[in-house]
Every structure is written in structure tokens, then in C-alpha cells.
């Protein structure tokens, strides 16, 4: 059987099957979903890259195949899918309606694969919508405030999806085809204003999923509200579908004359990154914090793509992969904390480092990667991004990105400190390390974060393949992936990653050895209550936790920017619309006679208009 079809059948069939299994044989469910995802991974990675299928349905010509760009995103989806579903088996233990959860989870994965393999706009939209509703159903699966965030998510998704659909049908109206290959050829023949309209509409469509300003307001609620095992996938892979779409639009559907679009997109993304980072800084719930952070990270990715240079696009795609890796880990880690400690509110939970050391390790690594600090993978992406922007003369964009990344240190520290460091509260004394199925995915993903910092080749090579399909010339030296260590910008400046790694590791190890070796035996552990505080002796009941209003000074400094949320504008707009709609409602005032008068008035109107305008 064609492996594309096999892939879809596996995932979608598996989804339904997992629902049934949960009903009739709940014991087998967890094993089944993990095995299923393993199988999906197997099929996906053994697939011949030339596999392709064409068929016609409802008079519409469809084509499925994995382009190399799609394959890159497919890697994220399948691996993150496998890991997050493995994680779910432990994380979701004991929750009800698991069949529903897994079914929609697998539906999301399947629809993402579907989006990626679509080589025509109709199947793209088809799977896009499946993705939307399946993820929506998980977003509203549990938690409080479902009402608002579910509604927000679905409204924005709908706006996005329908703008996309509008663009699709406009394209169809002009080119008469839905096939991407046909469209790529003929898109530039249509009128420029329509081209612009198509690009903007598609941007809105994909911008919603990639949470771009001002369409991002759904994201924080949706990310933080879903079960963390899904959010890992949601933020890691699902939002990348928007990025994937962006890449399609920016490289294939926008002509070079429309450089303004690139600029606008890049700036919007930059503003997104900055504002979202600021919001992340002032959050006190770890989930919310990560949610905003995801929005900001997606901003970087889009900036990279929109910069349009070789290095920028590579940075964007690299960050896209990396973001899936480290944000996946972080969401999983936060989920682990939630599962074990019962809350992710950083004003409540603290000092878990000694209870959950492995979770902390994974979070630490991911945070370092997220903050872009050398020598981990995040740095590689950030470096490429900066260099790309500087060398392509986007100086102010660099500053925006830099502002955002610097402020990102704040929340990076906040989440580590809030959850793991600080006072070890007695009420969390019982907390245990997360179970293995949750730890393994986290640690595996952090391993990727570490590895990609020194040997980015294994990610950069598929990225380069993808970029070739966007029309870039390959520039990476033709060497094995582990040999790739030097990154160049277009001015010829470079960074040697392996030197960095060696230097840091060497100094770190030497210093660590020395400091540990000196007086090792005499040192003993004391609790966090045993600290010096201006000469006072701290009692066990003294509250020495500092978590509330963590970044109050910073908040005060940036307050003018945050005073009025974009949310509020939408709310006002919505309220205004509702008032208007209520006015419309009054047409049906309940008096049957009025309805009859409407009929006769309409008749009279038509009779007059008919003789005047319709030429009778």
C-alpha cells in the first residue's frame, strides 16, 4: 500500500480504535497508542521520499506527497507526537474521558501529517480544519475558564481558516487549479492587487496558528489550558503548521516585488516577540508563562523566515525544530510538576529541585536552550537569526529581537526559580520524581537540545533540503553532519561551535572539579531555612518565600506597554457587535402582523424596483 495512505489510515484508524479500546479494553489503551505512534514513526522514516499519490474526489484533483520542507516538519510532528503520547500515558493516568482525549490527540497528529503531505490547497484546508477542531476539543477538555479560552481559540481559528479558504478560492478562481505545483507556476500571472490580497489572507490564516500579533490572543489560554502533554505537541508541532504555511506563502506565493509583505510580517512578528515576552515575564503561572513564551518564540521563527535570506530562513527553520524540542520539554516538565505537586502556580509551589532532580535537569537544559545561551542548540538558532538580520540590514529588527531575548532571561529564570529553586516548602515535601514514561521523553528531548548546540548538522541538513525546495542554493559544506561546526554569515564572520563547546566544558569541568574537591567531605547539606538573614535566626514557620510580584520593578518599567491589552480591544469590539446584533434581533418583534407587513412592504418595494431597475 502507498505509505502515505498507510500513514493516514494508521493514525486516523488508530484514533478511532483508541476510543473503542478505552471503552472496552482500557488496559491496552496506553500500550496501543505508544505502539501506534512507534509504527507511525517507522512508516514515516522508512518512507520513500518520492512517494506520491494523486486522485480525484468530488471533481477536485488532489495530490499528496511529502516535499522536503514538509518532511522537515513531519520529523517534528512524528517524533514529538511519539514522545508526547508516551508522556501522556503517565500524565493522563487517572483522568476520565481518556478515549476522547487520545482520539483527538491522534486526530491532531494525523491531520498535521495530512497538512504536510498535501500538495494541493483543498486537502491542506481539509486537514487544517480537522486539526482545528480536534485541537479545540482537547483545549476544552479540562480545566477552568474553558468557556472563554475555548471560544477565543475557535473564533480565531475560524477567522484564520476562513481567510485561508477565501484565499484558496480566489486562487482557484484565477488559476483554475488547487494543485500547488500549478499554482506556483501561475500565481504571478494574476493581478498584483489580488496577489497581495491572497498573500494577506493566507498570512492571516497561518498567522493565527502561529500566534502572530494581533491574532495571538487565543494562544495563552489555549496553551495553558490544555493538558500539558498535548500542549507540548500543540506548541511544539501544531503551531509549526502555521510556520510551514508561512514558508509556503513567503517563498512560493509572494513575488519579489512584494518585499513589503516580508517587512510587515517580520515587524509584526518582532512586536509579537517583544510583547509576548513581556507578558511572559509578568505571569505567575508557569503554564501561562510558557504559553506566552511560545508566542514569542514563534515570533522569532517567523522573523527568520520573513527575512528571506539564506541564513535567516535557516535560522527560522532551525528555531522551529528547536522550539519544538525545548518547549516540548518545558511543557512536559511543567506538566510533571503539575502532576506531582498539584499546581503550577509559581506563587505556591517552590523548591522542588531536590524532589524532582531529573525534571529539573531537563528544564534547566531546555531553558538554557530557550534563552539562546551557548553552547546549546538555541544559541545556534539565535546566532544565525541575528547574523541574518544584521547582514540583511534589518538593524532595528535585531534590536527588537534582542530586547525580546534579553527579557526572555527574566522569565527563563523565573520558571526555574519559581518551580524548582527557592524555599523548600513543607507542603511539597511529599512530592516525588515524575514516573519514567514522563521522564524519558523529557530527557530525550533535552539530549537533542544539547547535541544540536555542538552538532547542528543533523538538523541543518534536512533544513537545507527543505530550503532547496524553496529555491535557495545549498551553502552548507558537503561534509558529514558531525563535522559541521563552523557557521558563517554572509559577511564571512563565523562562530566555531565545537571550540565553544570544548572551551566551556573544559573550564566548567575543571572549575567544578576543583571546587568540589576542595573540602568535599566537610560539606553538608542544610535546608533552605538555614540561611543568613541580617543576623536573625530563621524559624521553620517564617515565610521566606519570595514569589509574588517577582518582577514588579520590571513590570512598573514596562507598564505603559502593557496597560491596555489587545484582548481588551477585541472584547470591546465583540461587545459592540453583540449590541448591534441584539438590535438586529428586534426585527423579529413577535407580532405576526408586522411580519405580514414586512411581506407586503417587500412586495411593494420589489414592484417599484422591478419596474425601475430590473427592466421589466
Amino acid at each position, binding site marked *: 500500500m502507498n505509505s502515505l495512505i498507510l500513514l493516514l489510515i494508521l493514525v486516523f484508524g488508530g484514533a478511532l480504535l483508541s476510543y473503542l479500546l478505552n471503552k472496552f479494553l482500557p488496559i491496552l489503551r496506553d500500550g496501543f497508542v505508544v505502539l501506534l505512534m512507534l509504527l507511525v514513526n517507522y512508516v514515516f522514516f522508512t518512507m520513500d521520499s518520492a512517494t506520491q499519490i494523486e486522485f480525484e474526489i468530488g471533481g477536485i484533483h488532489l495530490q499528496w506527497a511529502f516535499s522536503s520542507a514538509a518532511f522537515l516538519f513531519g520529523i517534528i510532528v512524528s517524533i514529538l507526537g511519539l514522545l508526547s503520547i508516551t508522556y501522556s500515558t503517565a500524565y493522563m493516568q487517572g483522568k476520565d474521558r481518556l478515549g476522547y482525549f487520545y482520539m483527538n490527540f491522534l486526530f491532531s497528529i494525523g491531520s498535521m501529517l495530512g497538512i504536510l503531505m498535501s500538495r494541493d490547497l483543498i486537502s491542506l484546508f481539509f486537514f487544517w480544519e480537522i486539526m482545528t477542531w480536534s485541537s479545540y476539543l482537547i483545549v476544552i477538555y479540562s480545566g477552568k475558564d474553558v468557556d472563554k479560552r475555548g471560544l477565543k481559540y475557535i473564533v480565531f481559528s475560524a477567522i484564520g481558516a476562513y481567510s485561508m479558504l477565501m484565499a484558496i478560492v480566489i486562487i482557484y478562481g484565477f488559476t483554475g487549479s488547487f494543485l500547488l505545483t500549478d499554482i506556483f507556476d501561475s500565481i504571478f500571472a494574476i493581478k498584483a492587487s489580488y496577489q497581495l490580497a491572497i498573500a494577506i489572507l493566507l498570512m492571516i490564516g497561518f498567522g493565527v496558528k502561529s500566534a502572530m500579533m494581533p491574532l495571538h490572543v487565543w494562544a495563552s489560554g489555549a496553551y495553558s489550558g490544555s493538558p500539558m502533554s498535548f500542549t507540548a505537541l500543540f506548541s511544539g508541532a501544531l503551531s509549526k503548521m502555521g510556520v510551514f504555511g508561512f514558508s509556503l506563502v513567503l517563498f512560493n506565493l509572494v513575488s519579489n516585488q512584494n518585499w513589503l509583505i516580508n517587512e510587515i510580517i517580520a515587524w509584526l512578528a518582532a512586536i509579537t516577540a517583544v510583547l509576548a515576552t513581556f507578558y511572559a515575564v509578568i505571569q505567575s503561572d508557569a503554564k501561562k508563562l510558557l504559553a506566552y513564551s511560545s508566542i514569542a518564540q514563534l515570533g522569532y521563527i517567523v522573523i527568520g523566515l520573513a527575512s528571506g535570506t539564506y541564513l535567516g530562513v535557516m535560522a527560522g527553520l532551525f528555531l522551529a525544530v528547536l522550539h519544538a524540542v525545548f518547549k516540548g520539554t518545558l511543557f512536559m516538565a511543567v506538566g510533571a510538576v503539575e502532576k506531582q505537586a498539584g499546581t503550577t502556580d509559581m506563587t505556591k509551589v517552590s523548591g522542588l529541585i531536590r524532589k524532582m532532580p531529573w525534571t529539573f535537569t531537563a528544564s534547566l537544559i531546555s531553558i538554557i536552550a530557550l534563552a539562546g545561551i551557548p553552547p546549546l542548540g538555541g544559541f545556534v538558532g539565535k546566532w544565525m537569526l541575528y547574523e541574518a538580520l544584521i547582514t540583511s540590514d534589518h538593524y532595528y529588527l535585531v534590536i527588537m529581537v534582542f530586547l525580546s531575548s534579553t527579557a526572555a532571561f527574566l522569565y527563563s529564570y523565573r520558571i526555574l526559580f519559581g518551580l524548582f529553586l527557592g524555599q523548600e516548602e513543607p507542603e511539597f515535601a511529599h512530592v516525588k520524581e515524575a514516573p519514567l514514561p514522563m521522564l524519558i521523553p523529557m530527557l530525550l528531548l533535552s539530549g537533542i537540545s544539547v547535541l544540536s548546540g555542538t552538532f547542528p548538522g543533523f538538523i541543518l541538513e534536512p533544513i537545507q533540503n527543505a530550503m532547496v525546495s524553496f529555491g535557495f542554493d545549498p551553502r552548507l559544506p558537503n561534509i558529514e553532519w558531525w563535522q559541521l561546526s563552523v557557521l558563517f554569515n554572509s559577511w564571512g564572520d563565523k562562530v566555531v561551535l565545537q571550540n565553544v563547546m570544548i572551551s566551556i566544558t573544559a573550564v566548567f569541568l575543571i572549575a567544578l572539579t576543583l571546587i568540589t574537591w576542595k573540602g568535599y567531605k566537610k560539606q553538608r547539606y542544610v535546608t533552605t531555612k538555614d540561611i543568613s538573614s541580617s543576623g536573625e535566626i530563621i524559624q521553620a514557620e517564617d515565610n521566606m518565600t519570595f514569589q509574588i510580584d517577582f518582577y514588579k520593578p520590571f513590570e512598573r518599567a514596562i507598564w505603559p506597554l502593557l496597560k491596555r491589552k489587545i484582548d481588551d480591544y477585541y472584547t470591546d469590539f465583540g461587545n459592540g457587535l453583540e449590541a448591534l446584533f441584539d438590535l438586529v*434581533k*428586534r426585527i*423579529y*418583534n*413577535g*407580532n*405576526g*402582523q408586522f411580519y*405580514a*407587513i414586512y411581506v*407586503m412592504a417587500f412586495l411593494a418595494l420589489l414592484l417599484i424596483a422591478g419596474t425601475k431597475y430590473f427592466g421589466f
Partner: protein
Amino acid sequence: MNEFLTISFYGTAIVLMLIGLYAALAKKNLLKIVIGLSIIDSGLHLLFVAIGFISNGTAPIFSPEVLESAQQMVDPVPQALVLTAIVIGFATTAVALALVIRLYKHHNTAAIDEIKNLKW
């Protein structure tokens, strides 16, 4: 002569319809509205019959005496149609009256603008 007939038949029928329409649209009492509907129907039926008429025509019924006078018979189709229309009008009126009875019992009023439980 013919013009006079035109005006009198068509005009009467149309005026009748307009009177019925006015009753149905402007009167508040449910019964008056139903009566208005009946008047509309009457006007319409009159109109039906009127268009089938021919000057100096006879009923479209053959008898041994008038067998040859087929040319002078009025158009029978509108008459057949009006028969159907009358029956349908009757049926509608019957249902309407039943509804009026129930509405009156339910709301204790027959004013249409006070029967507004269903709106918006």
C-alpha cells in the same frame, strides 16, 4: 360598456382584496384578521371568475339545447380553479379560527400585538 365592466369587475375584486389586506395588516383583533383573510380570498375568487368571463357568455354546461353554443361558453378553467381555491380557503379559515379559539383561551385576549410570547 366593456370598459365599465372591466372597471367594475376587476376594480371591485381588487378593491375587495385591498380591503381584506388592510384588515389583515392593520386590525388588531385576531378574528378581524381572519375575516380580512377571507375577504382577500373572496376578492381573489372574484378575480378568477372575472378573467374567465366573455361577453354574453353562457355557463359551460351542455344541454341538448345549447350543444352548439360552445363558442359562447365562458372559460371553464378558472371556474374549476376557483372551486379548488374556495375549498382551500375554507380549510385555511377553519384552521385559522381554531387557532384563534386556542389563542383566545390561552392569552385571554384577541389582540395580536399582545400575543408575543415568541419573539427575537
